[in-house]
């Protein structure tokens, strides 16, 4: 299985402010009543975007900028801290990715969300608190400027601005080498897996 090398993601950016945005908010549980991930993109942030009256609410995902990202199927979401906390539902990054987001930049990411995203080939880079505030402000003020998320060199740039970024070394390695989906490596370890299994009493039935 050959995968694209994700060394750099370039695209328009959308700021979605707030800390501790949970995966229930990203994709409400009623949309998990499905047996495929198809069609999840249109429901991303559904209850933040649409009121109980069915009318659109003011939300970044309802903006013209979001529509441009959806059309391009390429873009960067700039988020706060502890983004994607709560439920492990992979439906959350799947919905954002299917909407059009191909990278996240934030203060920190919940661990399961982080793993679910990078395994899709979608990098989650973190900035320092001050840099994130500056990046967030820049993105709002300059919606037409593309953001470059450089996974190879760990830097986020927009126009003349640039901010030092970080990501777990293993995730970076997987992305830039086109091995962000670990299945091939895991399958390759099969003989060693059997060996480990043989040493575990509860696995061999004791």
């Amino acid at each position: 299985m050959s995968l694209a090398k994700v060394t750099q993601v370039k695209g328009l950016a959308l700021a979605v402010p707030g800390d501790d945005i949970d995966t229930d908010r990203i994709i409400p549980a009623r949309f998990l009543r499905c047996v495929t991930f198809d069609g999840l993109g249109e429901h991303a942030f559904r209850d933040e975007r649409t009121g109980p009256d069915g009318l659109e609410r003011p939300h970044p995902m309802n903006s013209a900028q979001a529509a441009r990202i959806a059309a391009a199927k390429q873009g960067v979401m700039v988020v706060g801290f502890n983004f994607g906390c709560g439920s492990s539902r992979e439906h959350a990054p799947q919905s954002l990715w299917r909407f059009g987001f191909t990278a996240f930049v934030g203060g920190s990411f919940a661990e399961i969300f982080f793993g679910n995203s990078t395994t899709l080939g979608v990098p989650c880079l973190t900035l320092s608190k001050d840099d994130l505030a500056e990046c967030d402000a820049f993105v709002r003020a300059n919606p037409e400027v593309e953001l470059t998320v450089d996974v190879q060199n760990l830097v986020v740039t927009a126009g003349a601005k640039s901010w030092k970024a970080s990501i777990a070394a293993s995730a970076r390695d997987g992305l830039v080498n086109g091995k962000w989906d670990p299945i091939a490596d895991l399958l390759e370890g099969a003989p060693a897996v059997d060996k480990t299994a043989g040493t575990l009493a509860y696995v061999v039935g004791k």
Partner: protein
Amino acid sequence: MAKTLFQKVWEAHTVRQLPNGQTQLFIGTHLIHEVTSPQAFGMLRDLGLKVKYPQRTFATVDHIVPTNELKEPYSDPIAQEMIEALRKNTKDFGIRFFDTNTGTQGIVHMVGPEQGITQPGTTIACGDSHTATHGAFGAIAFGIGTTQVRDVLATQTLALSALKVRRIEVNGQLSPGVYAKDVILHIIRVLGVNGGIGFAYEYAGTTFDGFSLEERMTVCNMSIEGGARCGYVNPDQKTFDYIQGKPYAPKAADWDAAVARWASFASDAGCHYDDVVKFNAAEIRPTVTWGITPGQAIFIDEKMPALETLNAADRATAEDAYKHMKLAPDTAIKGTKVDVCFLGSCTNGRISDLREVAKYLKGRKVSPTVKAIVVPGSQLTAIQAVHEGLDKIYIEAGFEWRGAGCSMCLAMNPDKLVGDQLCASSSNRNFKGRQGSQTGRTILMSPLMVAAAAITGQVTDAREVFKV
């Protein structure tokens, strides 16, 4: 060298180092359910892969099952499609399925312990963030995404990086009317909803020594609400006694060796922790959430925080929370009117929870303004409760007695809040819209506090209502 349980289990299950520096970790026990597995089976079929060790994956159905409708087809055709997909997948790949007609179906995190599948010193994974529940037995248990469910099915392994270990010590005796739920809500309040990122939580101290396995499960269950992907308690005699005699427990001839092996996984005296935090049990009081994250919590007799006392980041979340909850800063939460009371979930839907509440509920009546439902977490729990006559106590008090499942914890079945109803809930998440209505409001609390809310129709101190 002295090691933590986490390190010992990690080393015993390490298959090899992967090229990206992660560990290929053997997952001895894999639990699956209907919501996060169908896409994983789809990926297996697309890739032409088989399930590597079908006997090490166990399935049940919990999220979408209706609790007031036993006959199929369910009125929700999507729920029916999902349960049928799981039946087909488990049949096609030779996986044991604790189905609704077996008397053993239930919330996946209850089925593992009830069956004796959950054991110390093992690795467990499940496509559900509350998998840390199994850590109560001294297992290292991870919540995973669907692509990782595929990885475990196909290879019985995951690509993971080791976690740091934070020892959370709680010492002393809890006051009457204060429960394991209050302990974990208090821990999250203090350490924050993101304080556990990068850590496994080791819960220890005399309070945990005194806890039953079910109380330990309540605490481990909500580790993820504190940002920690897994949490555990070192195994002891109580752990072994709980497992003994369960269907998947080691048989008599293997028992002593299993216990010796399990005991050997406990953290060594003098081992290194990346962090240690201590709490005094006597200082913990009944705790309730007031906001939209589990960390936004106070003792029942405290006021909700004034905005000016919060730092800038917390303040923004708090403003959002007050608006959603329709509550006012710097006021008491006690006395807030409640519409719905939910007793259940993988946090507090076990037999000990049902027994504790029933003890106080006898002879009391649910307020006519409240809809109260009790949802045993599993069929075995429901059967046991009925055997003890607990169902009658609840029904006489005015609770609806329901079938087993996740129910109103996340409202993927028909049990949902309506409009901006406020729910006193024994579950684990108070996120916006969590209980099925986007304007619905959730206040997390212990089961006895839920019962007190049901009787009085408001958020109140169970210790006063029940003279605890």
